[in-house]
């Protein structure tokens, strides 16, 4: 019963969304008026490379092969999926001939580390503080925090990241200006390296954390204010249940449900925000990789990052969807 009503539709949606998303990625360059091959050649020329006329045809056909543009669209589409299943996302055009997947895998641990920790922490802490602020909504500290959130929350990631960078890195010099670890350090599990990583991660993590926490704070506060008015809370209070238990088991426990759903829906936005923050700090994750790809016109790399992100985010949303029933018995036992 549960499987049929809750699980199955979501699994189907998961597969369909990935299919549709990747198909869209496939079709975008092919439907837009500009031919990527000619563009690449134009950009090569703009950078001043000299191209022999005879070599031009070979280059065009090579590029077509690399971009997967040979044959009819159906052929291309099938070949595209074939390559995907083999884990072949093509090769980076600018960092030729490094496979795109390798580049992504090198950048991934940085982004994953940053994203996982800040998302989970900001969700947990933002919700916790928001929960109490919503319950004690008339107290001074609750209103002060809300006023603060009103100013912080609408700021876009890059502006906030930039402000932190300016103040703490440029002016105060407390933290490094860019990078993931000190230049020249080789990744290893030694303490100096870990320390350097942590130190470099502070500002980007703080930047994402504060903005995300502000959002969770405000939404949780609203949810808790609504739940406070629910009859089961009033009933528990009228039956003399101790207040701390009312807050934890009756109010916050129920308020978490829409917040978990909200987390799933926001993952896409949080991911984009993290990428942008990385760009500001030149943090060696997917964000900077993307930025370099854009600057260098490395279309294959961008496509690879997009495909990877679609799969990663859709999977994360599915995981959140799968976790939700553990918290809501109304779904578990329909």
């Amino acid at each position, binding site marked *: 019963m549960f499987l049929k009503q809750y699980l199955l539709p979501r699994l189907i949606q998961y597969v369909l969304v990935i299919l549709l998303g990747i198909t869209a990625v496939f079709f975008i360059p092919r439907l837009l008026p500009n031919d990527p091959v000619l563009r690449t050649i134009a950009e090569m020329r703009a950078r001043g490379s000299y191209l022999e006329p005879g070599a031009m045809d070979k280059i065009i056909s090579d590029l077509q092969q690399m971009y997967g543009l040979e044959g009819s669209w159906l052929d291309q589409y099938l070949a595209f999926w074939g390559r995907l299943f083999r884990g072949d996302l093509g090769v980076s055009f600018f960092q030729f001939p490094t496979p795109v997947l390798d580049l992504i895998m090198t950048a991934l641990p940085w982004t994953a580390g940053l994203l996982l920790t800040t998302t989970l922490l900001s969700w947990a802490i933002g919700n916790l503080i928001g929960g109490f602020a919503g319950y004690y909504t008339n107290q001074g500290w609750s209103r002060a925090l809300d006023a603060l959130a009103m100013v912080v929350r609408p700021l876009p990631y890059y502006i906030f990241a930039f402000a932190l960078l300016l103040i703490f890195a440029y002016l105060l010099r407390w933290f490094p200006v860019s990078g993931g670890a000190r230049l020249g350090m080789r990744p290893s599990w030694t303490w100096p390296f870990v320390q350097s990583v942590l130190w470099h991660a502070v500002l980007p993590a703080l930047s994402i954390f504060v903005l995300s926490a502000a959002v969770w704070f405000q939404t949780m506060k609203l949810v808790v204010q609504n739940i406070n008015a629910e009859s089961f809370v*009033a009933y*528990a209070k009228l*039956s003399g249940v101790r207040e701390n238990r009312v807050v934890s*088991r*009756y109010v916050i426990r129920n308020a978490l*449900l829409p917040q978990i759903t909200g987390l799933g829906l926001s993952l896409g936005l949080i991911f984009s925000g993290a990428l942008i923050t990385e760009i500001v700090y030149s943090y060696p994750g997917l964000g900077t990789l993307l930025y370099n790809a854009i600057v260098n016109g490395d279309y294959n790399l961008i496509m690879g990052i997009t495909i990877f992100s679609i799969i990663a985010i859709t999977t994360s949303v599915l995981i959140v969807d799968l976790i939700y029933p553990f918290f809501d*018995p*109304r779904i578990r*036992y329909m």
Partner: protein
Amino acid sequence: MGDAILRAEALRAFYALDIYGKTKVIKAVNDVDLAIRENEIYGIAGESGCGKSTLLKALAAAVEPPLRVMSGKVVYRVNGAEVDVAALSQEEKRQLRMTYIAYVPQGSMSVLNPVVRIRDTYRDFIESHLDVHQKGEAFALAREHLVELGLPPKILDAYPHQLSGGMRQRVTIALATLLKPRIIIGDEPTTALDVVVQRGVVQLIKDVQSRLKNTIVLVTHDMGVHANIADRIGIMYAGKIVEEAPTERIFGAPTHPYTRYLINSLPRFGDKTPRESVPGSPPSLANLPSGCPFHPRCPHAMNICKREMPGFTRVAPDHRVACWLVEEGRYGETA
């Protein structure tokens, strides 16, 4: 019937709301005097919006902003001594709940925490009042208790959404009676239930009262329920009690014009004449008429009714009415 165990003296409880700069005062409980006795079932009857629920909140000492007790007091009789509720601390009030005074809510969708099992709700309620070593006993008691009330003990393992409305209502009654409180307050406990289940719940309440010999205050607009189990009834209108008498007299000799309308509008078997209900609609509690609040709808309204609020007149032992017709001895005359 014994002494008064729950009293309200000249009680006024208003809501003060600030809606975008305009202040609205809602006089939900407007000078109420009540003396509810031990070992009786007292019914409070009235239309929606007459202030019944607010009166209950005040009686249960659950007054929170924007509701405020403006004047008057609520008095409990705990262990033989009279206690003014206003003098109690939050913690003292909390300890009285369930052990001295319990609450049965309107059993609509969600009075039970939807994400925990019934037994966890039981645990929350019990643990807030009993010591650790008493808990084990309390749970065994709870199981017995459920059986006595005709509920299967495996209810404890269920989640609220798995139970029907009637079951949930019975669970709340079970919870209310668990610690044998002296007073049980019920806020429309039979509304939102279908007729068959209603009958079962009403019967349950009667059984509970006869076993515990405590006091039950029942608020409902359903006169049929009052007729069934109430010993005495207080008729409430626009924040005031306008008539109070034993059940037989309310139904047999209704005195206040509003009560008469209420009783006369009830259908009777075999009587096919069209029923007449009160003309007009109840006044807004934020904008009450002067003098007696019923005068705009009263067919017998006199000039004094528009100017002054009548006091209580005793028309029979235990039967009091607040009406100028009675007070001035002009009862029975038409306008």
